[in-house]
C-alpha cells in the first residue's frame, strides 16, 4: 500500500507546487493524475519516486518512508531516456546489474519479448523509433519487478496511433505482475483508457480537486458511449478545477486562464 500523508512541496522561491496531498493507493490499482499545466502533477510523481523530497508530509510504501529512490518503485519519464551507449537489451537490463548473468539474460529476453522488440535487442537506441524507444524504457522499468510504477506523461511525445498502441501495451504488461500504477497525463482519453481512479488536480497551490472512479469493464472501447460519458465527466471536472483556480486566486488569474486552454 502506497500512502501519501499531507504531502506538500514549496520551492525555495516560495512557489507552493503541492499542498496537503493525502491519498492511499491500493496494490495493483491504476491511478491517473490529471490537471492543467503547472498543477503540480509531475512534482507529485517525483516526490513519490524519491527523486525529489517533499517539504511537508511524507510518502510511505508498505510502512517505509520514501526519501530516496527505492527498489520497489520504478519510473518512466516523458522521454525514453535510454542510455545511448548501451544496446536495447543492455538498457533493459540496466537495473539488474547485481543479478547473476544467466538470470539477467532470461529476464531481459522475456521483457523484450513482452514489448515485442526481440528483433531489436542488439540495436543502438538511436536506431529505434520514438515508440520503440519508449517500449524499451517501459521494459527497463518493469524488469526489476517494481511494486509501484510511476509514469510521467509517458506517451505525450508520441503520435496518436503509437500512443493508443502503447496504452494497450502498457495495460497488457500491467496484467502480468499487477504493480500499482500512477500515471500523470494531460490526455483525458488516455486517463479513461487506463485508470481505475482519476485524480483531478488544481494549481496554486497544487491540490487534489476531485476524484473520479473509473470502473468501465476492461478492455475499454474508446468508441463506446460509456467511454464518452466518462470522458465528459472528467472534462467537466477539469473545467471546474480551472475555473475555481481563477476565481479563488486573483493574483494568478492570468497564468491560470492561459492554462485553461491546454487541451
Amino acid at each position, binding site marked *: 500500500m502506497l500512502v501519501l500523508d499531507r504531502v506538500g512541496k514549496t520551492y525555495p522561491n516560495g512557489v507552493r507546487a503541492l499542498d496537503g496531498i493525502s491519498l492511499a493507493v491500493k496494490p495493483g490499482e491504476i491511478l491517473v493524475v490529471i490537471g492543467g499545466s503547472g498543477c503540480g502533477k509531475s512534482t507529485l510523481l517525483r516526490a513519490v*519516486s524519491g*527523486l525529489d523530497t517533499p517539504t511537508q508530509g511524507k510518502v510511505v510504501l508498505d510502512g517505509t518512508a520514501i526519501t*530516496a*529512490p*527505492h*527498489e520497489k518503485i*520504478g*519510473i518512466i*519519464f516523458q*522521454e525514453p*531516456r535510454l*542510455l*545511448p*551507449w*548501451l*544496446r536495447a537489451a543492455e538498457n533493459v537490463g*540496466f*537495473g539488474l*546489474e547485481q543479478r547473476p548473468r544467466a538470470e539477467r539474460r532470461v529476464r531481459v529476453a522475456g521483457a523484450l519479448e513482452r514489448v515485442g522488440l526481440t528483433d531489436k535487442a542488439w540495436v*543502438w*537506441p*538511436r536506431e529505434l523509433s520514438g515508440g520503440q524507444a519508449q517500449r524499451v524504457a517501459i521494459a527497463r522499468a518493469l524488469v526489476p519487478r517494481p511494486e509501484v510504477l510511476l509514469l510521467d506523461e509517458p506517451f505525450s511525445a508520441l503520435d496518436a496511433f503509437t500512443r493508443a498502441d502503447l496504452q494497450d501495451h502498457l495495460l497488457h504488461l500491467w496484467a502480468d505482475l499487477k504493480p500499482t500504477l500512477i500515471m500523470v497525463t494531460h490526455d483525458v482519453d488516455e486517463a479513461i483508457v487506463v485508470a481505475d481512479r482519476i485524480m483531478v488536480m488544481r494549481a496554486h497551490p497544487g491540490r487534489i480537486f476531485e476524484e473520479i472512479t473509473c470502473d468501465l469493464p476492461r478492455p475499454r472501447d474508446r468508441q463506446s458511449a460509456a467511454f464518452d460519458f466518462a470522458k465528459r465527466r472528467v472534462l467537466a471536472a477539469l473545467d471546474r478545477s480551472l475555473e475555481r483556480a481563477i476565481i479563488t486566486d486573483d493574483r494568478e488569474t492570468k497564468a491560470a486562464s492561459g492554462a485553461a486552454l491546454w487541451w
Partner: protein
Amino acid sequence: MTATVEEAPAERDASRGRLARFARPALGLLLPVGLAVFWEIAVRIGLSNGRLVPPPSVIFDTFVDLASTGELQSHTLATLFRVAAGFVFGVAAGTVFGAIAGYSALTHRLIDPTLQALRAIPSIAWVPLFILWFGIFEASKIILIAVGVFFPVYLGVMGAVLSVDRKIVEVGRAFRLSGFAMVRRILLPAVMPAYVLSLRAGLGLGWMFVLAAEFLGASTGLGFLLIDGQQLGKPAQIVAAIVAFGILGKATDWLIALAAAPFLRWQDVVER
C-alpha cells in the same frame, strides 16, 4: 534502342558510384603528387638545381641514408619518448583537474579562474623558467609538453562533465546508483566522446611542443635533426624530419582513434 535507354541510367549510376569511391580521395592527392612530380621533373631537366628545395627523390634518399645509419630511429625514439611522457603527465593532470572542476560548482569556482588565467599565457613563455627550474635535459622538455597537453584535456573533460545530460543522470539516480557506480555506468560513458576528442587535440599540441622543446637545446630528437639540417645547410634532412613528424603525428592520432573506437561505436553516426 529501348534496351540502351533502360540500361543507361543504371550504368551511369554504377559508374558514378565507382567514380565517387575512388576519384574523391584521388582528387585530394592530385595537388601534392602533381607538385612533387612537377618538381622532380623540373630538377631533372635542369630548370632548377634543387639545392634549397630538394626534389622528392633526394628526400627519399636522405630518409634511407638516415635510416641505414640508425640516426633516424634513435632521433625518432627520443622524440617519441618525450611526447609519450609529456602526454601521459599532461593527460593525467588534465583529467583529474577537469573532472574536479566539472564535478561541483564549488571546485569549479576555486580552480577554474586560475587555470584559465594560466591558459592565457602562451606556453612557450614558460620555457626559460622551466630551464632554470628543471635544467636543460629531459625534465624541462617533458614538463613543457605536459603543459601543452594539459589545457585541451582539462577544458575537454571539464566541458564534458558539465554538459552530461541531467536527465540521464536522473535515470542513474532512479536505479539507485551509488557515487562510484554513477561515475562508472553513467558519467564515464557519457563523457567518453568529448574525452577522446580532447586527447587527440592534446596529442596534437604535444607534437607541437616537443618541437619547441627540441629547438631550444637538444642533441637528439627530430627537432634536433631539423636544426642540424638548417645549421649544416641540408634542406633534404629538414624536409625528411618534417615528413617524419607528419607521419608520426598522424599515426599516433590514428592509434588513439583506433583504441577509442570500441567505446564510441554507439555514437558512430555515419553508416558504412
